[in-house]
């Protein structure tokens, strides 16, 4: 039967049809939809499996890897920067002769659309010396995942499947097959030489890994195909969605060049590559985002790619970009730009809208209070919806998951002039990687406020549960008490406020800073209010602007920055945009002349 599946659902389907029944993840765009789909497919068939959201990617990776130590088929999914978090076990497990099948899905974000880098996971696979497959569509992603499990078991090696965002978030008709009942039973065979990563043993493991890679390179790859077989002065090599785009462009513009579609990016299918290179004088390489195939090609002088600037080295390879490169080389007439059109749009103020916190978002209230309490503060922040606090001028630096806590420490040891330092971090990100930084801040007596914006969910990635809720995909878990956790880290000042109460939040933050100055220790304030997308309800009273009081000062628009507030240029007054307003009422507390009112 065919179903219209998101790429991530197709990947999940590949996982369940492979009978992998230990599957773990931490959410991150563009990978977030994989794990819930695995749980959904197993539940549909009444199959009991372990499908767990974990606190971070390292934890998730290690649990799944251990299942493969114990002979199970296991998978772990994450986004590309999540792989950075899991790098330690990833590099280590690459050396292991696994007992079961283990597939890592690391989803890349060329662009980037929702990430701090557009790094290429295929490079990471190459560095770990493990095979990596690069699907070009949801249909192929499902097939590749199934193949990857067999491959992993055949070579007793960890295998990566690397979908790009345009595969993860593509939707396509995908053939769905029955889930076979071929689940492996867990059995751990003790063997210290195999499972303990002692330095003395690791050299032998490394040699064995090298042998595996060598044999894999000689094996033909079913996902690497030579198309339009003929001799030519020019050929094209492409992988991932770039291959799909090249195919569409060949059809659209009747281009007839030899094309090598690469599925297994490392190690490359040596035979297919040699044959292709013997057909073409020069080759153009289209791949996202780093030159991983390109680097493995023997003679660079015949390669038109990222190394010589023929193909862009940053950003997505969109159809426009790919066609731009091809048309230049082939002398075709092509111009996707309408001369002057975009300039005209920006001249009349029509621009792409930037993402913004949702109306009613509790973070907006927290940020407003924080800036009121410390107008001259320094505000390190973190990865999540609240990064969008940049629109409220409440985010001064963001590094990586958990970085707000440690940047608080870093600023604390660097700025000795009494500048208030307030680090903001979400609850999910705090559990993910904030906790070690907080223990370190207590240990070293760093002086800043950690302002935990607790909306009880992982909001940016679509509302996955956090340890605080105890909720998980297949079964109910244990709830973690955030206040006790913070206290357990050794923090002596912990207060919880509802950020919708703006004045209380301001006074609590000021009290916290007094404590930091007096005791020379870190203080924690938790702003607790559920995510508006989860809470979902309108409040009883409609909000309106009393036009007789509004002075048109735009304080609400500039300082609060809410989609529910807009400006009537004719009347020169603020007004409520009822298309977006959810009547949260926080702006009532924001207006300096009390012109915003509840009905």
């Amino acid at each position, binding site marked *: 039967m065919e179903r*219209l599946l998101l790429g991530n659902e197709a990947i999940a389907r590949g996982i369940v049809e492979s009978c992998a029944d230990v599957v773990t993840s931490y959410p991150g*765009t*563009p990978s*977030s939809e994989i794990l819930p789909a695995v749980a959904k497919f197993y539940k549909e068939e009444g199959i009991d499996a372990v499908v767990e959201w974990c606190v971070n990617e390292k934890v998730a990776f290690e649990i799944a890897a251990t299942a493969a130590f114990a002979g199970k088929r296991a998978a772990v999914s994450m986004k590309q920067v999540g792989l950075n978090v899991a790098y330690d076990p990833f590099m280590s497990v690459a050396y292991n002769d696994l007992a079961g099948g283990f597939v890592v899905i690391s989803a890349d974000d060329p662009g980037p*659309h929702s990430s701090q880098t557009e790094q290429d996971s295929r490079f990471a696979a190459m560095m770990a010396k493990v095979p990596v497959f690069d699907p070009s569509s949801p249909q192929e992603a499902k097939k590749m995942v199934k193949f990857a499990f067999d491959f992993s078991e055949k070579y007793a090696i960890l295998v990566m499947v690397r979908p790009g965002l345009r595969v993860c978030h593509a939707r396509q008709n995908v053939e769905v097959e029955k889930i076979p009942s071929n689940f492996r039973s867990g059995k751990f065979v003790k063997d210290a030489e195999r499972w303990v990563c002692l330095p003395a043993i690791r050299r032998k493991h490394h040699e064995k890994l090298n042998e595996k890679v060598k044999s894999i390179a000689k094996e033909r790859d079913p996902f690497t195909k030579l198309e339009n077989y003929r001799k030519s002065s020019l050929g094209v090599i492409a992988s991932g969605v770039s291959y799909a785009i090249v195919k569409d462009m060949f059809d659209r513009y009747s281009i007839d060049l030899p094309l090598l579609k690469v599925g297994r990016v490392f190690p490359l299918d040596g035979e297919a590559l040699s044959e292709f290179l013997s057909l073409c004088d020069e080759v153009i390489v289209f791949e996202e985002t780093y030159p991983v195939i390109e680097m493995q090609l023997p003679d660079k002088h015949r390669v038109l790619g990222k190394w010589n600037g023929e193909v862009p080295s940053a950003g997505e390879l969109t159809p426009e970009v790919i066609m731009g490169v091809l048309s230049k080389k082939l002398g075709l007439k092509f111009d996707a730009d309408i001369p002057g*059109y975009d300039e005209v*749009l920006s001249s009349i103020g029509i621009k792409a809208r930037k993402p913004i916190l949702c109306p009613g978002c509790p973070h907006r209230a927290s940020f407003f209070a924080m800036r009121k309490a410390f107008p001259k503060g320094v505000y390190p922040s973190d990865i999540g919806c609240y990064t969008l606090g940049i629109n409220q001028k409440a985010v001064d630096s963001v590094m990586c998951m958990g970085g707000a806590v440690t940047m608080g420490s870093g600023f604390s040891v660097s700025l000795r002039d009494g500048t208030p330092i307030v680090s903001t971090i979400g609850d999910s990100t705090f559990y993910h990687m904030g906790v070690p930084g907080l223990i370190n801040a207590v240990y070293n007596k760093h002086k800043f406020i950690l302002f935990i914006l607790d909306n009880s969910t992982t909001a940016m990635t*679509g509302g996955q549960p956090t340890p605080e809720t105890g909720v998980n995909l297949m079964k109910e878990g244990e709830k973690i008490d955030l206040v006790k956790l913070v206290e357990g880290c050794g923090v002596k000042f912990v207060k919880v406020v509802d950020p919708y109460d703006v004045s209380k939040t301001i006074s609590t933050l000021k009290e916290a800073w007094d404590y930091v100055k007096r005791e020379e220790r870190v203080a924690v304030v938790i702003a607790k209010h559920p995510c508006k997308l989860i809470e979902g309800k309108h409040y009883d009273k409609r909000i309106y602007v009393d036009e007789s009081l509004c002075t048109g000062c735009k304080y609400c628009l500039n300082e609060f920055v809410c989609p529910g507030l807009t400006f009537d240029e004719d009347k020169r007054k603020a007004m409520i945009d009822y*298309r977006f307003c959810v009547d949260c009422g926080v702006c009532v507390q924001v207006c300096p002349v009390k012109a915003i009112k509840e009905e």
Partner: protein
Amino acid sequence: MQMIFSGIGGQGILLATRVIGEYALSKGLSVIGSEVHGMAQRGGSVVSHLKIGNYNSPLVMRGEADLLIAFDWHEGLRNLPFLKEEGIALLNSDKHSKVEHPTIESFIRKKRLEVYAVDGYKVALDQLKSPGVLNVVMLGKLSYLMEERFPPEELKNIIEKIVSPKFKEINLTAFDLGRKMEIREVI
């Protein structure tokens, strides 16, 4: 057929795209498209691509789309260059909406685009008090504009299947009202 859905994150673009995709699949056609999830969804500009027929990649190239459906006037104008010659656009608008520049106007004429405007929020917000059903209001009008391609009863069947039962009623009402709402050609 290649389509672009555009608007602002939160306007229900994914659902609208999915309805059309599921409908095409129910007719036995191949479907591939590209959605936006994650940060870009939070109130920012959102473009969703859908290609029905024999295609490999999920992305529509500028100048190739047969149809543009925009839930927001400015997002519609911004994305007109996705349309090919004689392409059709259905844009949500309000009484203030106008083609604000001669360059845009001449672009529409030169490419012989059919650009239609409707006031979808008049139905979704003023009549139904549910701004969230704007997407289905727009689908209703699409089924009026291209009735043979997108028969209303069949789209409604799909909507019934994929929206949560709690919102079934209001979505079907929104579809019918959207189908009947006023429409004008922009130029």
